[in-house]
C-alpha cells in the first residue's frame, strides 16, 4: 500500500469565542494516499470545514491547534514557517471552495487570475496562458479563449466551478481539497461536476478530499469516507461498507434520514431527534449518546475506537457486536 500523502494525527482545534473556548475538532485522525478520493461527511457544526482548513492551514485567527499534527509527506505542516506553508499552498495542496463566486476576484479577468495563480512557476507568461487554456479545455469549458477574457460575473455558477477546478489543478497539486464543491449548484450542474471530478481522478496522481454534507455526492464520488460528529471522526470505512454495513449509530441514522434513500414514498420521514452537544463544554462520554437509539449507561464513559476491519472503525461502545 502507498505511504500516506497526508496524515492528520489526533488533531484538536479550539476557537476562542466571546462565550468561551469552543472545541471544534477533538482528536480527529485521517489518512489520504495517492490515487484516493476521501469523503469527509457530516452535518453543520461537526468540524468538517475546520478539518479541511487545517490541511491547507487557512484557519481563522481565533482558531488554536491544541494538540495533534497535520503531516504532508511525513512533515508537520502546522509547525512550518509561514513562507514554507505558503509555498505548499497552491503548489502541493490546492483547494476548491464552496462558493465559486467569492473564490475569484470580481475585477480581474479569468485569464489574468489563472496566470497569477502560477506566480511560483518560473515560466513565461505566454506559457502560463497556454497552460490555463489547456486546463480550461480539460474541465470542459466550451470556448477557453473566450473564458480567459471573461470576468467572474459573466460566467454561470457551474462554469465558475469548472474554472475553479481548473485553477486548483494549475500547479499540479498532490492534494486537492474540495469543500462542498457542488452545494451551490443545481442538480444537473452537480451531476456534471461530479462527473468531471470522477473523470479527472483517473489521470490525477494525487489524493482528493471531498468535504460534503450530501451523502449522494459521497456515494457517487468517494473511495473511503470519514463520518464526523461534534468534532470527532465517529466512523471510517470504505464507501460500500459505509452505506451497506455502517457500524456507528450516527452513520446509520444519517443514511436513514436521507430522502433519496427510499424506493417508495414515505409519508413520515425518519429524523435524529435532539441537538448537537454544546462544544464549549463537550461531554465526557459519547457525544452522540443523548440522541442515540442504542445508548446505555456505559455510553456516559468515553467510547473506544473499535476496529471492525483493517479499513473500518467506529467510535462507539456498541460497535463491537454484530451489525
Amino acid at each position: 500500500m502507498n505511504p500516506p500523502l497526508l496524515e492528520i494525527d489526533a488533531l484538536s482545534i479550539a476557537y476562542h469565542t466571546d462565550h468561551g473556548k469552543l472545541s471544534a475538532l477533538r482528536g480527529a485522525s485521517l489518512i489520504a494516499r495517492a490515487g484516493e478520493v476521501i469523503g469527509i461527511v457530516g452535518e453543520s457544526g461537526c468540524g468538517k470545514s475546520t478539518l479541511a482548513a487545517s490541511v491547507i492551514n487557512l484557519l481563522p485567527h481565533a482558531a488554536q491547534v491544541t494538540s495533534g499534527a497535520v503531516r504532508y509527506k511525513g512533515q508537520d505542516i502546522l509547525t512550518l514557517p509561514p513562507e514554507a506553508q505558503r509555498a505548499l499552498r497552491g503548489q502541493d495542496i490546492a483547494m476548491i471552495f464552496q462558493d465559486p463566486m467569492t473564490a475569484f476576484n470580481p475585477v480581474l479577468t479569468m485569464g489574468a487570475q489563472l496566470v497569477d495563480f502560477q506566480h511560483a512557476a518560473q515560466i513565461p507568461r505566454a506559457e502560463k496562458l497556454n497552460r490555463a487554456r489547456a486546463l480550461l479545455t480539460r474541465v470542459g469549458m466550451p470556448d477557453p479563449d473566450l473564458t480567459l477574457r471573461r470576468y467572474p460575473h459573466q460566467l454561470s455558477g457551474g462554469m465558475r466551478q469548472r474554472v475553479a477546478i481548473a485553477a486548483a489543478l494549475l500547479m499540479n497539486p498532490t492534494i486537492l481539497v474540495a469543500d462542498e464543491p457542488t452545494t451551490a449548484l443545481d442538480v444537473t450542474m452537480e451531476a456534471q461536476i461530479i462527473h468531471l471530478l470522477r473523470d479527472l481522478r483517473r489521470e490525477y496522481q494525487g489524493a482528493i478530499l471531498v468535504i460534503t454534507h450530501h451523502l449522494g455526492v459521497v456515494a457517487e464520488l468517494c473511495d473511503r469516507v470519514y463520518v464526523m460528529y461534534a468534532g470527532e471522526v465517529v466512523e471510517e470505512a470504505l464507501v460500500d461498507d459505509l452505506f451497506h454495513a455502517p457500524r456507528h449509530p450516527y452513520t446509520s441514522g444519517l443514511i436513514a434520514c436521507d430522502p433519496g434513500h427510499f424506493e417508495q414514498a414515505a409519508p413520515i420521514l425518519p429524523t435524529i431527534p435532539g441537538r448537537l452537544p454544546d462544544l464549549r463544554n463537550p461531554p465526557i462520554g459519547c457525544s452522540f449518546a443523548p440522541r442515540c437509539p442504542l445508548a446505555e449507561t456505559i455510553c456516559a464513559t468515553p467510547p473506544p475506537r473499535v476496529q471492525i476491519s483493517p479499513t473500518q472503525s467506529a467510535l462507539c461502545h456498541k460497535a463491537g457486536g454484530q451489525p
Partner: protein
Amino acid sequence: MTLLTVQNLALDLPLRGGILSALNPKSRRSLQIFADVSFTLNPGETLGLVGESGSGKTTLARALLGLTPATHGTIHFDQTARRTPADFTAMRAHTAMMFQDAIASLSPRMTIGALLAEPLTIHGHPAPKTKIAEMLALVGLPPDFTTRYPHELSGGQARRVGVARALVLNPKLVIADEPTAGLDVSVQGEILNLMTDLKTRLNLSYLIISHNLAMVRHVSDRIAVMYLGRLVEIGPTRQTFAHPLHPYSQSLIASEPLPDPRKRRQDLAIKGEIPSLLNRPKACVFQSRCPLVQAICRTDPPTLREISPHRFARCHFATPPTGALS
C-alpha cells in the same frame, strides 16, 4: 371542486434600459419570466413544484398570491377570480407563504410573539396571548419562545416559527418556498413531518416549491416540473418519478445523486446548462439540451397536453408509458 385554478398565467418584468429607452417608451423591453402556466390544486392536496434556479418557481409563487402581479392569465381561488390588489388582499387572509430564508423572513427587532400576532393584526383580528401560545404548541415550540428574538433561534426553530406564522390565520392554502433549504438532513424530516401532520389535522393544501427532488417526492401528491418559465410536465408523483414523460424530467430525475455507491451513474443524463431567460430558445424551450430534438422542436412550440390519464407533458414526442404503471 378545486381550491386554486390557474389558467395561462404569464408574467413579464420590464428590463431597465439605457437613457434612450427612458426617452422613448416604445423601445422599452420586457423579460418574460414565465408564460402559459396552467394547473389546478384540490383541497387537501400537495403539489410539488420542481425546477432549477432561474426556472421561475419563486416568481410564480409570488404571482399566485398577487405579490408580483401577473401580466396575463387568470387565477381562481375558492371559485372566485382574483385580479385586483383588493382581491388578492382578501385572498391572502386564506393563504399563507413560507419564505425561502426562514430567519431573514422574521424581522430581527420583533419578538416571536409579536411576529405571530402580526398576521392577525394586519387582517383585523384580535391577537390574544392564548392564540399565540396555541400556535407555538401546534408547531412544537415551548411557550417561553414568545419573548425570544429571531437571532436566538436555530435554523430548524426558525422554520417552525415560519410554519406557525403561516398557519395563524387558519389558511386553506400554504405556499412553501424551499421549506427545508439550509437544514441538516437529520432536522429536515422534522419540518416535513410537522407539515404533513398539520396538513391532515387542518385540511390544508400545499404548494411546495423546491429543487430537492428526493424531498418533494415524499411529500407531494402531484408534481409539476418547470423549465425556463414553462411547466413541462405535471402528474401524480409516483407515476412521474417511475416513468417521467418529458425528456427534461427524465434527465432531472436521472441527475440526482443516489446515496448508494452500488448505483453510481455511469453516463451523464444531461449536458450543457440552462440558457439565460434573455436567450430563451424559440418554440420548445428545452431544444438546446434535449437528446431527442428534431426539426419540429425548433419551429413549433409544443403545448402541455394530456399524454395518459391525469398526466400532462409539453413535448412533441411524449408517449404514454408502456408497462404496469398507468
